[in-house]
């Protein structure tokens, strides 16, 4: 029962088109409502700045979500890495050393994270709750030990705060992600694992190895995200990173990423999603919407998007 080419193409790309349409609609609506403020040079700059960290994290998260895995320890990890970046850089006086250290730590944590998720035989979201407790505890502990609300970096990260640099970072990470995702075993196996782990394993794929590697890349992205998050304010505290795990999840869904992973996963979901997410928040404020109404509007937009992109029209109720 073969279907025509056109039909298949349309079906596979329908969710992409819808999420692009969502972003476009957001832009158009807020351009009008904000009376053009959305497009002011200043606003474009802060949009890039605000999206940068989300986009980098979301692209790393795609590798995890592709496998049908979820992670809520992201925020606490981000917080810990930001703190460590500042502390190590302050102690050694070298940003390079600071960044390399957190990169190394992030990769090791990624390994641990991956093995825990794979080996415990629990839904990954549950294992990530454990890790969230550990990372969150570490973050609190560091702040308790420091005895301060917020630590600042002595060397200013001005360079990483510039809009062209942030834009370049998004592009570079996007290029790396797309390369890994489309043209190496990592991305292909991540999708394969999400679509059918048994079949992938029987095809001779070392699923444990690739799962762990996916987590390692995720860790890499968190470390890079931590650098840019720190650069924004030059400081970090006990609340740094809080809420990011959920924000990323919502962003990915807005970008049309299926939570079950598999072949419909795509890097563009991270970019489209994080931009939609940030423009939504920014646009609502620019349009002068009452703060208490912002939440309900965001919720309704989210429902509308998922009803368009995630609806399974036939068969049993989707799990």
């Amino acid at each position: 029962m073969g279907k025509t080419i056109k039909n298949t193409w349309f079906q596979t790309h329908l969710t992409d088109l819808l999420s692009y349409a969502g972003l476009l609609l957001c832009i158009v609506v807020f351009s009008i409502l904000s009376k053009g403020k959305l497009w002011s040079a200043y606003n474009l700059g802060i949009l890039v700045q605000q999206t940068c960290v989300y986009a980098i994290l979301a692209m790393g998260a795609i590798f995890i979500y592709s496998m049908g895995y979820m992670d809520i320890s992201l925020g606490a990890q981000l917080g810990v890495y930001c703190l460590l970046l500042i502390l190590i850089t302050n102690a050694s006086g070298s940003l390079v050393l600071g960044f390399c250290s957190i990169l190394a730590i992030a990769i090791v944590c990624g390994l641990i994270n991956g093995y825990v998720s794979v080996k415990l035989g629990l839904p990954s979201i549950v294992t990530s709750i454990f890790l969230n407790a550990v990372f969150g505890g570490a973050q609190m502990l560091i702040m308790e030990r420091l005895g301060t609300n917020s630590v600042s970096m002595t060397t200013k990260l001005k360079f990483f705060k510039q809009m062209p640099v942030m834009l370049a970072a998004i592009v570079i990470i996007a290029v790396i992600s797309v390369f890994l995702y489309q043209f190496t075993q990592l991305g292909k196996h991540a999708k394969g694992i999400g679509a059918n782990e048994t079949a992938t394993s029987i095809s001779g794929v070392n699923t444990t190895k690739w799962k762990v590697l996916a987590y390692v890349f995720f860790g890499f992205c968190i470390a890079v995200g931590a650098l840019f998050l720190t650069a924004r304010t030059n400081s970090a505290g006990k609340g740094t990173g809080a809420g990011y795990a959920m924000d990323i999840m919502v962003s990915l869904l807005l970008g049309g990423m299926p939570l079950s992973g598999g072949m419909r996963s795509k890097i563009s979901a991270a970019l489209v999603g994080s931009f939609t997410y940030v423009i939504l928040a920014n646009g609502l404020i620019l349009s002068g919407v009452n703060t208490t109404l912002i939440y309900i509007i965001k919720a309704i937009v989210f429902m509308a998007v998922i009803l368009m992109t995630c609806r399974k029209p036939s068969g049993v109720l989707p799990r």
Partner: protein
Amino acid sequence: MKKLLALLLALVMVVSVSAVGSANAFADDVKTTHHKIGIAHYTDAGKAVDAIRAFLDGISGPMNLEFVYATLSTYDEATNLTAMQNLISSGCEGILMSADMGTPAILEECESAGVYVAGFLCDYNQSYWTANEEVFGNEYFLGTVCDGHADIGFYAEDVAAQVIANGYKHIGVVIFPEYAYPNQAAASRVFREKIDEFNATAADADKIEVYEDQVLNFSPLEATYFSNYPEMDCLFSIAAGAGMVYPTMVANGKTNIPLYTSGFEGTDDADNFGSSGNGCFKGTLCSTAEAMVYPLCLMVDKLNGTGYADLPEKAERVDCSALEILSDEDMAKVKERALYYSADFADSFLSGEEVVQLCASYNSDATYANLVDVINHMGVADLK
């Protein structure tokens, strides 16, 4: 015919009045200029929020100001920066903020965008100790008014006096970590000094024991605290007691222990104060929303390009009156007449016109000293 003329005249007047539009006119000669001010507060719910909104709504007409609200975080710098950026983007010329997280980065951002910042109900302790030059020395930071007094030793003294007068013998003290709230640790020391003074002269049987400080890591008091000190008969929670301590007392049936605290929330602490409710709360402390006139006037003047003749060179943090509630009468007064409690602009210490008169740009006689004086006359005793 006369009637028709009168009607026409009235119509012309209405039109002309509305035609003045943005340049709002009242009291004959004062012409105010329209400004858009961002209000970034660290929370988006609660008594203080309602009071702030009521006050700002009340003065927005006479002051010819438009307010845009945003919510800050007290522990995440990036959230605050994002909120401030969005406010700048939406066209705010100046922003008042009540959280001190990531302030240096925020000022940097505002400086480059040419937007002024001032603080309210926040002592900017973090910046005050670690980034003073960067924040208080920045020309785009206009100063801040504390949530009451930066030093709350006076309250500790008053509580100590009450403790002695009421004959409590075993006192627990709860504070937030010193790094975040050094004034609470200081207040605890003042409290101990006062008690020690009393103990020096008191008979052995009357001596008061003060337990060591219990430090709350911004999470509620644990039940085991009461097991540790079963004899405790009075609790002085300098840390926000209504939210962090009282719930634990209720859960453990310890509301018989009198509680002195700070940070009046106008909920349980109002209902159970003194002789009402379970009477657990014996004293509390807060400051009023009207103290916002300090940063607001500085901001409006700055935006209008004027300033007080006696304006200090460097931005200051100033104290304002605290609503110190230590008796049923105090509480009754606050409940009845304070804007903080009623969120009714009619209860405000200042009318819109009075606020206009506080600004140098609208009243050439206005002085900085007067402004500071005004916000220091907003205590319980001043409630009309």
